[in-house]
């Protein structure tokens, strides 16, 4: 009996204390709204800025991942060091962990299909291309090593090229004219997406033997290799660095192994002063067409592991995301200070009310809870409004063509920080409300 009465008593008191705290907010609608706005702006900026940062990070990662896993690109930046067309085979033999490699020739050629004429980027590779780039075919099949050896006039179309030439119809088996010669379409690559995999969707792929002929070259300026795993890719880069250093050792200019950490160290050790300055920075722009573009003419060869680039870019973007979040958190803090400010004003204004409540039997805990809840309500409403506004803001960004991500962790962080700032900044005013001696509270008029 006594017990159930007690329990009922707590429930009723807390329920009404919660209701009265709500009264406190409704009583001053404008003031409460402004305080809530302060919190909401903080939460919204955390959610949207971290969402933008996270979106940028994902864009970069996807960009790199579209180039294929564990791919190493070796690019010569000077005609004097270009590679023989069999050189990639030598590399596979000498370097442990390399599974496949292809010479790469890229250029432009004229294209003719019925009445359609134009110029198109082509890529000359060997039959390992789909494997190296993790790129499947939408229809047909890729060319074989025999096609490559025999310099067969066959072509595999990028997805967009196929669409724009033939609409929805299957182009496999049809013929197109490249640089005056007729090529048979034997396959179409799957869609990678806008700007992905060096814009492969808008290119055509032919055997490198044909490509050399079209661009009138005897050597290739790039080799793509694929390692069996991340670790082997890292090791392979070190080996490749040694090989090319020896190969180009007598050259006036020292080679530069950029991007890879090992390469950087070696370049530093061996290349001396001249080299240090020209170590190429990791490109971070998601829309930079080639992560391996040279930054200066000093570089003869760039050896790049995409893994490294992904890692570095990912790390850099994570740091940026956190930085953005940190900046936004400051505005959350300001929102919290707003709560504290308004609660202190409220406590001062309502001293008489506090005194009356105390005279009628309210305990310190009742008042503590009342004012704490009032602060919490502000931060709860502010959080909800802020999350909504933040997501809305991200949507606007998305519509502007940026990649964004509504990151759950950002929402979590923002909410936790907002609520705890409501608590932290509400505690002091609430304590000061509950600890006024009843007489003094009543006297203050």
């Amino acid at each position, binding site marked *: 009996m006594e017990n159930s*009465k*007690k329990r*009922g*008593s*707590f*429930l*009723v*008191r807390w329920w*009404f204390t919660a209701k009265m705290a709500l*009264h406190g907010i409704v*009583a001053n609608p404008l003031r409460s709204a402004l305080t809530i706005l302060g919190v909401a702006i903080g939460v919204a900026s955390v959610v949207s800025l971290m969402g933008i940062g996270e979106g940028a990070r994902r864009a970069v990662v996807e960009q790199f991942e579209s180039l294929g896993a564990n791919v190493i690109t070796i690019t010569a930046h000077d005609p004097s060091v270009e590679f023989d067309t069999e050189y990639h085979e030598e590399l596979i033999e000498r370097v442990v962990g390399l599974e496949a490699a292809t010479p790469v020739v890229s250029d432009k050629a004229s294209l003719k299909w019925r009445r359609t004429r134009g110029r198109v980027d082509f890529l000359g590779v060997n039959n390992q291309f789909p494997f190296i780039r993790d790129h499947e075919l939408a229809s047909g099949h890729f060319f074989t090593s025999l096609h490559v050896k025999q310099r067969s006039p066959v072509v595999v179309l990028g997805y967009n090229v196929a669409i724009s030439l033939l609409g929805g119809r299957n182009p496999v088996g049809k013929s197109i004219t490249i640089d005056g010669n007729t090529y048979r379409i034997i396959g179409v690559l799957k869609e990678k997406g806008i700007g992905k995999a060096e814009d492969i969707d808008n290119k055509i792929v032919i055997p490198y033997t044909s490509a050399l002929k079209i661009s009138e070259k005897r050597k290739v300026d790039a080799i793509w290799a694929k390692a069996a795993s991340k670790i082997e890719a890292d090791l392979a880069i070190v080996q490749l660095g040694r090989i090319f250093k020896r190969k180009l050792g007598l050259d006036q200019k020292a080679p530069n192994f950029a991007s890879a950490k090992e390469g950087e160290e070696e370049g530093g050790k061996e290349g001396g002063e001249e080299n240090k300055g020209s170590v190429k920075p990791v490109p971070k722009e998601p829309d930079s067409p080639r992560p391996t573009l040279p930054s200066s003419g000093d570089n003869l060869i760039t050896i790049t592991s995409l893994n490294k680039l992904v890692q570095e870019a990912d790390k850099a973007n994570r740091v940026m995301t956190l930085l953005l979040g940190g900046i936004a958190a400051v505005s959350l803090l300001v929102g919290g200070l707003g709560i504290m400010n308004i609660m202190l004003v409220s406590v001062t204004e309502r001293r*008489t*009310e506090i*005194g*009356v*409540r*105390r*005279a*009628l*039997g*309210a*305990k*310190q*805990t*009742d008042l503590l809870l009342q004012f704490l809840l009032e602060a919490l309500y502000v931060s709860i409403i502010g959080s909800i409004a802020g999350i909504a506004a933040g997501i809305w803001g991200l949507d606007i960004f998305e519509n502007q063509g940026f990649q964004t991500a509504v990151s759950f962790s950002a929402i979590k962080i923002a909410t936790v920080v907002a609520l705890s700032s409501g608590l932290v900044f509400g505690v002091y005013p609430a304590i000061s409300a509950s600890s006024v*001696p*009843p*007489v003094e509270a*009543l006297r203050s*008029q």
Partner: protein
Amino acid sequence: MALLKLEDIHHSYKMGQINVDVLKGIDIHISRGEFVSIMGPSGSGKSTLLNILGCLDIATRGTYEIDGNRIEKLSDSRLADIRNEFLGFVFQHFHLLSHLNARENVELPLIYRGMWGNDRKRKATEALEIVGLGDRLHHLPSQLSGGEKQRVAIARAITMEPAVVLADEPTGALDSHSSNNIMRIFKKLNKELGMTIVQVTHDYEVSLHGQKTYHILDGVIERIENVESGGGV
């Protein structure tokens, strides 16, 4: 036996470095069912005394017992319980909460008691009927006259059926008509419900409604006046 027992009560306020002695040795015994007035010039310490009687303040020195319980030793939480269950307060300036209507104001002590909805509403309505405001349940304080506000405040003070009602100049802000009304209610509470009433007043007429008047001067009881008939009206 005395219900409220003040013995050798001293009270001083700290003003920076100096202590201002306000009460300088007060002995008062108030029995159950008494209706007592406290009079004295402004600044003589009447409110201070009433606050101590109401457990809103603790005397600097001396003992205060309610029904045999020493007050100075109790925790803040216990004091809140005593104020809630045992004492009812009526203030000169009513002190109703402006965003609550008449009945909700009266419900406040019942809420702090932890009483459930229907019981609480019934009790609050009863209290308002006792003070003659059964038809003003849903009026906000701003929609009530001064006299009516004070009657709501009285309803709030008595809804817990406290043993003692403490009133600090309950008629101080009212005209004579409303004052008489309040006094009639006090006498009814005293006579019919057996509540003990302690009121502070500046008005000699008002003090005559009680049975006994303590005249305070400069922190001590100057004299005790027994009112003949227990007042007219």
